[in-house]
């Protein structure tokens, strides 16, 4: 049980996918212009990352490794992730066309998003079991959502006409994200003090 809590805390705070691992930055910058789109995207990211972890782990352990096809890891993971993201996009388009229009291109971008592939590969690298992988995937997604929500809130306040023209938009966004990453470094000592 404690290991699951540790994975959750680790994935969300200590090893935040955005601020510590710098994975999944593209939708992070793209969808964070307003807080409303963030929650929709965050839900999609959590869903995709959790389900991808759940699908790629058995693929690796029960298909690739026994048949000695470890070298197919990246390719087969991408295949599974792509199919899953496409599925999610089609369902979102049907269920909520407004959300689909708001997320726009960032949903298919999840396909080659390094955060999704990253969590799948990290699960294998860190020798997690099945449940641990799924929890790690969920933690990664939740951490992504937390980071993007915090960032979007900041961005809504920081953007404005008082910003010098050369810094408007993405330059200021990067600096803000960098400062937030520095702030998140404060969580580094969390494990030692808690566990």
């Amino acid at each position, binding site marked *: 049980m404690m290991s699951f809590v540790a994975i959750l805390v680790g994935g969300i705070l200590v090893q935040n996918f955005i601020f510590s691992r710098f994975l999944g930055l593209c939708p992070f910058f793209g969808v964070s212009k307003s807080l409303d789109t963030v929650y929709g995207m965050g839900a999609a990211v959590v869903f995709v990352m959790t389900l991808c972890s759940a699908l790629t782990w058995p693929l690796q352990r029960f298909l690739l490794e026994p048949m000695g096809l470890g070298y197919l890891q990246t390719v087969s993971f991408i295949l*599974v992730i792509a199919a899953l993201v496409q599925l999610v996009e089609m369902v979102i388009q049907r269920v909520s066309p407004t959300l689909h229009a708001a997320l726009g291109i960032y949903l298919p971008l999840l396909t080659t998003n390094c955060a999704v592939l990253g969590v799948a590969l990290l699960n294998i690298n860190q020798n997690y079991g099945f449940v641990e992988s799924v929890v790690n995937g969920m933690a990664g997604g939740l951490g992504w959502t937390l980071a993007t929500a915090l960032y979007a809130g900041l961005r809504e306040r920081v953007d404005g006409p008082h910003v010098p023209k050369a810094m408007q938009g993405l330059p200021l966004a990067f600096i803000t994200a960098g400062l937030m990453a520095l702030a998140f470094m404060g969580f580094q000592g969390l494990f030692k003090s808690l566990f």
Partner: protein
Amino acid sequence: MWQAAMIMGGAGLLLGAGLAYVAVKVAVPPDERVTAVRNELPGANCGACGFPGCDGLASAIVKGEAAPTACTAGGPDVAGKIGKALGIEVAAVEPKVATVLCQGTADHVIRTYRYDGIADCRAAALMPGGGPKACGVACIGLGTCVAACTFGALSMDEERGLPVVDKSKCTACGLCVTACPKGVMAVVPQSQKVLVACRNTDRGPIVRKLCSVGCLACNLCVRTCQSAAVKMENNVAVIDPAACTACGLCAAKCAPKSIVLM
């Protein structure tokens, strides 16, 4: 080796079939009106309307965010067809055409230096003095407007160094106007027959030194005009198309021949 191929191929097929099935099940039927409007649009995706391609404009028109006349490239023809498809009245829009508001050829305007850089007017405009011509708003003649035109209506007259508008192909979309760093190109109503082909706002004595066909703000045209259609604004003559009767008297009186008859 074949194991890998089989597995990847099999997985691909399986996932593809699954996705196809889901795609059919959760398919969102496209709005018929959007398809109807889209079919009437030219399909050039020139972007002059300000929307992302013809698809974007079709959805905007149906949503009411754009007028049926928004497609300048299609002109009144397309606007009428869209109006019929949606069952709404479309107001007639005056046909327009792009024009070159400069006559600064090599023998008229002084060249301050030889420009040997990127063959793009926007690059040359960043150079000292705003370009290799003495006049700050002169046509640089490197053809950025020609490249911007998606309808092939512009060509560069290499001898004169000025663009030429093919009126039969020009759709007045305005892409050349945005592309030109000097504001040489302008979209004017086709009915306007008399134009001032100069936009230099310097005083007469200065302009005389820069260019032999530049407007000197001598006010002869203003005094000659019988319909009070010509005014002097910022040391350059401006013709009001509403008042102009196209008599051509101002063009005849203009000493540097800055006023041209279309």
